């Protein structure tokens, strides 16, 4: 499904990703762990096409399509979704307006029929209920004045409404309270399907108790330096990254 090979990404003059190779087949959930500053968010921005994150070498494909050649919105329409580590506040743009614009733009890009306002509203309300997002929060401008945890839940709501093929969750667990963590994990698990895949970036084993990853990758200094099963996360929790950092 997603294939990244020998990816080099520079931010300004600095090379942050230095030959990263990774492949996530359809139906699987992979976790990425790694020390602060290793390049995890850089990877998620490079995959989604943020300006300033320049791929200088390597290739990225999603279901065989060359992602690097597409604009951010084309990648989104191709089914790529990023739950931001730091979700943005967008003053003056109501959440519902935003969701409707996104849904319809993606539908249009894919040549699918657009959804009616009431249908969208129904869909959003149902999902919001599952995530314990109040109707009042939906009325506010997107993320404005939300707490850290509320913003993260709003990211998951967007994911559930947009139903992406491939989702990247960049530290979505940070800032969530104990109940919210479970709710979010339930949401993620509900989205699991044979034709979908996910990349979960996290620092904590806790989330992986709820979302059992098929594979765990260790990202250090811009490269994947180790890959294993869920047990690798448990080991990292105990031992930290010293071993990898020393080798790097």
């Amino acid at each position, binding site marked *: 499904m997603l294939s990244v090979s020998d990816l080099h990404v520079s931010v300004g003059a600095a090379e942050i990703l230095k030959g990263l190779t990774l492949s996530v087949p359809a139906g699987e959930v992979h976790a990425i762990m790694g020390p602060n500053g290793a390049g995890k968010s850089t990877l998620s921005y490079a995959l*989604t*096409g*943020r*300006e300033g994150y320049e791929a200088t070498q390597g290739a990225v494909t999603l279901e065989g399509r060359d992602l690097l050649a597409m*604009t*951010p*919105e084309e*990648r*989104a*329409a191709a089914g790529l*979704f*990023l739950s*931001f580590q730091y*979700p*943005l506040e*967008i*003053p*003056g*743009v*109501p959440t*519902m*307006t*935003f969701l*409707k*614009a*996104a849904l319809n*733009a*993606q539908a249009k*890009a894919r040549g699918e029929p657009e959804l009616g*306002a009431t249908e969208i509203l129904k869909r959003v309300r149902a999902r919001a209920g599952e995530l314990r997002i109040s109707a009042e929060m939906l009325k506010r*401008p997107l993320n404005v004045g939300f707490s850290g945890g509320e913003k993260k839940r709003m990211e998951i709501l*967007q994911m559930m409404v*947009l139903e992406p093929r491939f989702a990247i969750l960049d530290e979505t667990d940070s800032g969530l309270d104990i109940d919210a963590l479970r709710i979010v994990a339930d949401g993620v698990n509900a989205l699991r399907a044979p034709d979908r895949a996910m990349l979960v970036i996290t620092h904590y084993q806790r989330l992986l108790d709820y979302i059992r990853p098929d594979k765990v990758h260790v990202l250090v200094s811009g490269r994947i330096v180790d890959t294993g099963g869920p047990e690798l996360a448990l080991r990292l929790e105990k031992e930290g990254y010293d071993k990898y950092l020393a080798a790097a």
Partner: protein
Amino acid sequence: MAREGIDLSTVDAVRALEAGKYTAGFTTDIEQEFAPKGLSEDTVRFISAKKDEPQWMLDWRLEAFRRWQTMEEPSWAMVRYPPIDYQDATYYAAPKNAAKYKSLDEVDPEILETYKKLGIPLREQETLLGVAGAPRIAVDAVFDSVSVLTTFKKELAQAGVIFCSISEAVREHPDLVKKYLGSVVPTTDNFFATLNSAVFSDGSFVYVPQGVRCPMELSTYFRMNAQGSGQFERTLIIVDKGGHVSYLEGCTAPMREENQLHAAVVELVALEDAEIKYSTVQNWWPGDVDGKGGVYNFVTKRGDCRGARSRISWTQVETGSAITWKYPSCILRGDDSSGEFYSIAITNGRQQADTGSKMIHLGRNTKSRIISKGISAGRAQNTYRGLVSIHGKAANARNFTQCDSLLIGDKCGAHTIPYVEARNVSAKLEHEATTTKLSEDQLFYMRQRGIPEEEAVALLVNGFVREVLQQLPMEFAVEAQKLVAVSLEGSVG
């Protein structure tokens, strides 16, 4: 839900309209009658005679004209334009045989067609812009120098509301006009207001009697059509004790290669407990991308909160004109009176705007609020200029001012020039201003969700101006929002 509908319709508008298209730019081909070119006492007499005015009105005009000849055009605004030759314009243009049509059946079909194209309903059963379920709106249609038709007059008269053209008011309600005309903006006020006082052509007159809430929205629709003509409208609105009115003003002009001059004066008087809400959507022809043509808009708008607890609120959406020079103001004379100014000013291409508000606090416990959102794109210059003045007796006066400017592209300018004068110890004044560009991070976030760049920009711009759009009556908000989107087309990417 309805408001959300408006947001989405902007997005639709962006999609639907082709780039750079000014949809009001067509001309209407009808027989017209003109004053001889140039400006002299004879021109003033000609206009006055055309309007069958009484002697006192002519004298008032002539005095203003003599005064004007001694005045100098102001040069402090941040706008640049070649010297205006005041002798090279026509000061009166009107559809032939139309001092005023008595009924809709008499109106030249070409004119009817014009308003229809612009979305302005002149048949009473029609609603503005075809919005289903919208409240009814009485319209005064001003075509070049004359008001051609005023709708719903009968129904308004039953409520005691006078809504007619100013020319008609001079003839039919001379006492009211004599008492209030020039009482807010004196004939000596400034170069452009004085010029207007001498040659004003038409405009609207509103009187809302004591205790009456005007039963419908009132609106005037100004259309400049004739080539080489200026428009000098004069509007006077008086709301007596405890009365209330909401008034809308819309303006368009055809695309012309030369610059058209527009120097209007609007006076508002609110007596005790009265309330006036005045909204403008100004969409005069802005000139082409190279700055050729376009309307010079030099306007003096002022409201006088004469009575205690009176309230005046200005809302403006300024997207048109080559040059905008305009400072809708409130004189807060009555104790506990309040003034508001909400503005969206958008400049693109080579447009220049120097606009803002003046709040003059004279009475006790007076309050004012200024919210200004300026957007500059292309090679345009956009200036907020405003005055908040607290006089010695204005105990407990309060002002809050927020001016935000958005720059789209690196060839334009955005400027903020507030003047603050405080003379009372118990007053509180706050002014905040920011100048930024659209946030790259927000744009990326939206694009990551699949929203194309242009649409993302439209949504962000809408968010930026939202607070002001919400002040507009619903029917106008839809129109205004489309205008915002259209005015900025071609400025991104």
